[in-house]
């Protein structure tokens, strides 16, 4: 391995993916510098305020922290439960990565494979450069978590350790990314024995679940891999843990991260560049795999567009089976928990209902990252065809809006199935009731990313994925979507069980009509936006 070359790779990849996309967006460089300076000043002010804010007396309770604490205690949640739940959820995500997914290392641009890897570099050098680039990328994103410091300070009653929260979140993202790469490497090396690998992962889940049931708490087997990280985050907002406890957890997490990295580097030279695949190629392969005998052609151009953009993606066996499996995977454990285990595990029913709030960010971010990274990049990449052959962009806008609203509704349906089982059966109607909001969200997502992408040739040329600015914009939309869905979920839990059936039916009907009207109006707006952003610009 050549460290110097790794740093060169990191430097130019950072320029390509992170710095230059910003420089390109700001025609006047001093405007960019001023913007960055303002952001730094704001972030620094938050940190200084958090450090020098007068500590609250031990017995005192600020209104916000007290109410958060109170509601968490009412739900049976304490710091130990939260640490266990967070660390187990992170472990499960990684185990899921072992079970599913492709045997590849994905990259954003084809040049990273076709140009960079055709240079005389060993894979260890490349992987280290890539890791440094990813770390800087994640640091840029997690820097924004500085804005959470005041909340953590409030919760910890003015402890200065709260300033370590962004560091803990940064460590967690680096850890997840490094572990994800290590898992991909192992899957490539053991590709001939991938079924054994999957079976081992499955056995690990079963044993951990069995141990959890016997011990009547979440098994350390499942929480251990991420326990340091979960602690380092949660301890930033607790009262009794000192800054030393946070530092010790951070140290533990960093130590394991270094071990993961060393393993990653050790295995790197057993990976052929063949397994490094650009996102665009992965999308093509996925499309080839899915190709079944499906009819696109129709005499009406609108119908052809609808067939290609909506029907192909949504109304196919693979998609329906996947959705059914996800619903089953959510509904069945929820039913078992509700029916048999609530009492045995000593969990209150409110806690069980509260868990859906954790599901919302998870599912919404999964659905949105799928839309943004896969479906949207593909849809926008083919935009030139629509521009050349379509008489107008309305049918495209209509189908895209419908498709994105459908995907978002499916994510919400999973949550509503969980809520219907654990809270009230009427919660199953939630996706229908908030359909107008979902249509709005789909519009917002498409409008923002289409606008940004139209400035970057993503629409005009082959798909190369999304860059920093699009990611940031999409993340902002994601925050809005998650917040709206969380508020809706809480409101519905209170309101729906009290509404009589007939009124509920009327509400559903009104929502549906409103959603249709919104879809029609926003389709017009979106097609106008698409035309003016891309064709006229």
């Amino acid at each position, binding site marked *: 391995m050549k460290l110097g*070359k790794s740093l*060169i*790779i990191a430097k*130019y990849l950072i*320029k*390509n*993916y992170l710095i*230059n*996309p910003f420089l*390109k967006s700001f025609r006047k460089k001093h405007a960019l510098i001023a913007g960055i300076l303002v952001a730094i000043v704001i972030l620094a002010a938050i940190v200084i305020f958090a450090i020098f804010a007068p500590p609250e007396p031990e017995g005192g309770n600020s209104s916000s922290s007290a109410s958060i604490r109170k509601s968490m205690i009412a739900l049976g949640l304490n710091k130990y439960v939260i640490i266990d739940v967070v660390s187990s959820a992170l472990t499960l995500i990684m185990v899921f990565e072992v079970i599913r997914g492709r045997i590849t290392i994905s990259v954003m*641009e*084809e*040049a*990273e*494979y*076709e*140009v*960079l*890897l*055709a*240079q*005389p*570099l*060993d894979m260890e050098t490349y992987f280290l450069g890539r890791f440094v680039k990813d770390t800087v990328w994640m640091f840029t994103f997690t820097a924004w978590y500085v804005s959470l410091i005041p909340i953590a300070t409030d919760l910890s009653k003015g402890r200065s350790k709260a300033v370590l929260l962004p560091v803990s979140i940064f460590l967690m993202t680096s850890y997840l990314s490094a572990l994800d790469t290590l898992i991909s490497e192992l899957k490539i090396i053991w590709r001939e024995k991938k079924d054994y690998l999957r079976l081992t992962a499955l056995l690990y889940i079963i044993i951990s679940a069995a141990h959890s049931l016997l011990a009547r708490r979440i098994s350390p087997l499942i929480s251990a891999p991420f326990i340091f990280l979960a602690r380092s985050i949660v301890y930033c907002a607790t009262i009794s843990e000192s800054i030393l406890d946070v530092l010790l957890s951070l140290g533990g997490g960093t130590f394991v991260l270094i071990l993961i990295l060393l393993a990653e580097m050790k295995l790197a030279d057993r990976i*052929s*560049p*063949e397994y490094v695949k650009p996102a665009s190629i992965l999308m093509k392969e996925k499309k080839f795999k899915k190709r079944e005998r499906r009819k696109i052609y129709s005499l009406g151009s609108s119908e052809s567009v609808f067939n290609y953009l909506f029907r192909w993606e949504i109304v196919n066996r693979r998609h329906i089976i996947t959705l059914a499996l996800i619903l089953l995977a959510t509904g069945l454990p929820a039913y078992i928990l509700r029916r048999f285990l609530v009492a045995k595990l000593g969990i209150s029913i409110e806690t069980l209902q509260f868990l859906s709030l954790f599901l919302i960010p998870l599912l919404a971010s999964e659905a949105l990252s799928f839309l943004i990274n896969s479906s949207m990049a593909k849809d926008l990449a083919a935009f030139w065809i629509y521009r050349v052959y379509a008489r107008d962009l309305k049918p495209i806008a209509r189908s895209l809006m419908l498709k994105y609203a459908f995907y978002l509704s499916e994510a919400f349906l999973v949550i509503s199935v969980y809520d219907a089982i654990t809270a009230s059966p009427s919660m199953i109607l939630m996706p229908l009731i908030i359909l107008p909001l979902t249509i709005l969200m789909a519009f917002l997502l498409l409008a923002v990313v289409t606008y940004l992408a139209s400035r*970057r*040739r993503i629409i005009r*040329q082959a798909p*190369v994925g999304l*860059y920093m600015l699009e990611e940031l914009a999409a993340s902002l939309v994601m925050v809005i979507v998650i917040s709206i869905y969380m508020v809706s979920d809480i409101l519905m839990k209170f309101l729906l069980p009290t509404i009589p059936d007939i009124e509920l039916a009327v509400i559903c009907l009104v929502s549906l009509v409103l959603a249709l009207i919104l879809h029609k109006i926003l389709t017009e707006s979106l097609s106008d936006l698409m035309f003016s952003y891309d064709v006229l610009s």
Partner: protein
Amino acid sequence: MEEKCSIEVLSLHKRYGDTKALRGLTFSVEPGEIYGLLGPNGAGKTTTLKILVGLVRPDRGTARICGRSVTSQRVEALSFVGYIPENPICFQNLTIREFLEFIGSLRELSREDVEEAMSYYLEIFELKEKRNEYVSNLSRGMIQKVLASAAFMVRPKVLIMDEPMAGMDPEAQHVFKEEVRRMVSRGTAVLISSHLLDMVEKFCTRIGIINRGVLIAEGGLDDLRRRAGEEASLEDVFLKLVEES
């Protein structure tokens, strides 16, 4: 004395799922030779070239650059190679200057060498004014010129090129060919895959035709002509041989 380099391909096999891309392909390119690899779509040309630059691993067989195996001595073998990929693929958000500096530093060229080579190639390809332009703002032909500059800049002993002139204007094609000839005169071995039969006919010193992953004919243009009639063009030869195979 400077080492003269050749390309050796011995009984290469490669399979993608059920598709056999290469079925025992064998050929070699000697120093100072321009070898044109022809074949219909899906014949295995790009796979062969990707194996030679270490991007794809063969299932069986050997590929050597300057006597080094591209699988077991990948880094050493690739240090002799300049490569132009099939499509105009380049880092979208780097400027031309940054991209060439990137390649130069990976090849451990000195700053002066990079500056000198950059100045020379951007001048002959008429890209000097655009050196600070982002790659995403360039046309297909311009990106090809940038990729050619990067491949030439590293002073390769072996040049491997997949449709290198696609999108280039006639003037740039002329400059490109002159530059390749200059390198060949110094002993560089050149492997070029193309569908431009006219260009291959005039430019290459030896031609290999592959179909369904095997070499079906090889030799100088005159040797190949004899198989299709004295007056036959390369196009006639190509069509006849592919049909027969």
